[in-house]
C-alpha cells in the first residue's frame, strides 16, 4: 500500500482475562474511508480508543504518519474523535463548542481567527445561523454535525467515528451518511468509522474491516466482503446470508436440503453452506425435485419498499429468509403454515469447509 498514513502492528489489549484486541494489524492509506464492522463486544470501540489514545495497548505498536504514537497522550496525536453520544459541552453554545479546541488546545489561536474558522466549519456542516444556540436547543442530527465540526475544526489527518449515526433515526442516518462522505471527500482526510450496522459499513466504507472477538477476520472493499465473505462468521455479520450446517465431503455438501455438488469451497474450521437471501427461490411442495430442495413452512413476510422479505421455518426450527426484489416483478404470495420447497442455483452458493476446494 502506498503511503500508509496509519498502521497498527500486533495490537493486543486485555481487561483481566478478557482479550478485547488480539494481535490486530492494519494499514490505512491517505484519504481512505474504513468501516469497522462487528457485533458488540468484538473490540471495535476498544480499537478506536487505542488509536485515539484513550487506552494504551498491552502489546503492539500504533504508527501515525510514520511516528510511533503508542504511548503519546490523546491530545498530542492530531487524531480527531467523534463520540457515539456526541459528547458536546452542554454549557456552551454551538460556536463555543466548535471553537473549543482552537481556543483551548495545544496552540491557542487569536479570538478573531477562532471565530472565523469556527464559523467556516459550522457553515460547512450546514448549521450557519445556529452559532449562538445552546447545544440543548438543537436536534439530534444538528448535534451530530456540531460534534463533527468540532472535531474537523482541529484539521486532523485522521478522524475516528464511534458509531456516529447510531443515535439518529433511520431517515437522518441516511442523510448523514451521504454528508459524512461528501465532507470527507472535500477535506481529503482519512475516516475510520466503527459501526454495528452492516448496511452502514457496506455503504460508507471504501474498505470494510470485519472484527470478531478482538480479531480482524476480513478486510476488503465493500463488494469483496459482500460477495466473498472470508468465513461463516463474516457471512453471519453481513446479515445477508442463510447459513446451513452439514457435511462437505468429496465435492458434495450434505445438509437438510439433500446432497448438492459444490464447485468450490473456502477453508474454514467448520462446514457451512451459505446462500444469499435474494438468491433463494420458492417451489411448490408438489413440484418434482431438482437440485437443492429444502422443505420449509411459510411464516410471514415483511414489506421493505423496494423488496419483500419472506420468512420460512425449516423442520429443525431454523428461520430462513428470502428476499424478493420488486423490480423483478410482483411477488408470489404464500400461505401461512403451508409447506414449500426452497431451492437455489448451487453455483451461487458460498461454501465453507474443512476441505477447501
Amino acid at each position, binding site marked *: 500500500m502506498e503511503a500508509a498514513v496509519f498502521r497498527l502492528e500486533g495490537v493486543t489489549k486485555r481487561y483481566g482475562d478478557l482479550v478485547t484486541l488480539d494481535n490486530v494489524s492494519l494499514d490505512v492509506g491517505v484519504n481512505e474511508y474504513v468501516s469497522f464492522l462487528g457485533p458488540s463486544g468484538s473490540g471495535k470501540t476498544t480499537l478506536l480508543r487505542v488509536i485515539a489514545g484513550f487506552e494504551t495497548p498491552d502489546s503492539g505498536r500504533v504508527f501515525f504518519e510514520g511516528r510511533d504514537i503508542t504511548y503519546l497522550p490523546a*491530545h498530542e496525536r492530531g487524531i*480527531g474523535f467523534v463520540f457515539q453520544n456526541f*459528547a*458536546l*459541552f452542554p*454549557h456552551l453554545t454551538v460556536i463555543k463548542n466548535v471553537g*473549543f479546541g482552537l481556543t*483551548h488546545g495545544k496552540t491557542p489561536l487569536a479570538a478573531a481567527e477562532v471565530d472565523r474558522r469556527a464559523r467556516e466549519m459550522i457553515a460547512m456542516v450546514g448549521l450557519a445561523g445556529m452559532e449562538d444556540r445552546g447545544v440543548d436547543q438543537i436536534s439530534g442530527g444538528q448535534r451530530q454535525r456540531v460534534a463533527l465540526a468540532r*472535531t474537523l475544526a*482541529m484539521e486532523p489527518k485522521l478522524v475516528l467515528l464511534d458509531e456516529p449515526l447510531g443515535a439518529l433515526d433511520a431517515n437522518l442516518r441516511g442523510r448523514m451518511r451521504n454528508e459524512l462522505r461528501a465532507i470527507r471527500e472535500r477535506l481529503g482526510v482519512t475516516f475510520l468509522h466503527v459501526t454495528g450496522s452492516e448496511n452502514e459499513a457496506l455503504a460508507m466504507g471504501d474498505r470494510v474491516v470485519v472484527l470478531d472477538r478482538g480479531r480482524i477476520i476480513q478486510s476488503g472493499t465493500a463488494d469483496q466482503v459482500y460477495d466473498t465473505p472470508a468465513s461463516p462468521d463474516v457471512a453471519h455479520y453481513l446479515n445477508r446470508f442463510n447459513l446451513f450446517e452439514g457435511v462437505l465431503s468429496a465435492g458434495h455438501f450434505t445438509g437438510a436440503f439433500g446432497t448438492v455438488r459444490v464447485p468450490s469451497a473456502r477453508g474454514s474450521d467448520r462446514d457451512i453452506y451459505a446462500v444469499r437471501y435474494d438468491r433463494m427461490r420458492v417451489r411448490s411442495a408438489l413440484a418434482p425435485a431438482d437440485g437443492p430442495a429444502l422443505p420449509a413452512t411459510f411464516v410471514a413476510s415483511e414489506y421493505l419498499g423496494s423488496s419483500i422479505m419472506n420468512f420460512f421455518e425449516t423442520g429443525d426450527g431454523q428461520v430462513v429468509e428470502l428476499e424478493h426484489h420488486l423490480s423483478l416483478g410482483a411477488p408470489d404470495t404464500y400461505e401461512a403454515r403451508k409447506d414449500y420447497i426452497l431451492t437455489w442455483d448451487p453455483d451461487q452458493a458460498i461454501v465453507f469447509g474443512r476441505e477447501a476446494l
Partner: protein
Amino acid sequence: MSDMTASVPRKDNSTRLLLLPGVIWMMLFLITPILMIVYVSFWTQTTFNISPDPTLASWKQFFSSDTYIGSLWTTMRIWLIVLAMTFIVGYPTALFVGLLVKSKTLSTILLVICVIPFWTSFLIRVLAWRPMLGKEGAINILLLKAGIIQQPIEVLLFTELSVIIGMTQIYCVFMVGPIAFMLARIDRNIIEAARDLGAGFGRIFWKIIFPLSMPGVVVGAIFVSVMVLGEFATSGALSGRKVNLLGNIIVTQVGSLKWAMASVVGVILTVVMGVVIAGFLRIVDLKREL
C-alpha cells in the same frame, strides 16, 4: 367537547386539593410565625413585661448598640470565612469522590464516610473539638512531643479560630454532597472529547468541569450559608462566649425574656439569609440544571 370543558374545572379543583395540606402547613408554621416575629419586634418591652403597643425602640436600640452591630459583622465575617473554608476543603474532596473515583460503589462508600460524623449528636461533635484544640489538647500534645513548639498554642480554643475550625468540619459535608453529585453527572466522554481537542487538565477543569459543577457549588453554598448564619451552638461551645453571633444574641435575649429584641434580631437574620440565597440563585439558573 362539552365533556372536556366540564372536566377542566374538576381537574383544577383536584390540583388545588393536592396543594392544600402543604399550603396549610406553610401558613401555620412558616408564614404566620414570620409575620408574628415582625409584629413582636415592634412591641414595647419593659424589664419584666411586654405589651403590644407599637414602638421602634428595639430597632433603634439594635442599630445604636456597638455590641449588636458588632455581632452582625461577626456573623457576616464568620459566614464568609466558613463558606470559603468549606469550599476550599470540600471542592477537592468532591472532585475526588465524584469524578476521579471511577467505581460507583467506592464513590458511594466515600460519600457515606463523609456522612458518618452525623450519626453522633451535634453537641458531641462540637464538644469533641475541646479535647482536640485545648491548651492540653491532642494537637498541642502532638506538636510539643514532636518538638515543633515549646509552648502550647493557646489561640486554638475559645477563639474565633476554633469556631471556624469547628463549623468548617461540621458543614463541609453539605458542600461536598451537592458538588460531588453534579460532578458525578458529568459525562466522561465530554472530558475525553476536551482532551482529544488538545486541552490540558487545567483548561478542562476551568472551562468544562468547574462550570458544569456550579449548580452543585451554589446548592452547597446555600446549605452552608443558611446553617452558618443561624448558628449559635458551635460559637457557644467553642468560643468561650467571646464570639457572639446573631444566633447567640437571640438565645440570650429569649433566655432573659426580651422577646422584642429577639424578634428584631430574628427579622434581621431572616432578611440577611433571604438576600444571600437570592444572590446565590442569581449565579445559576437552578430550574434549568435540576
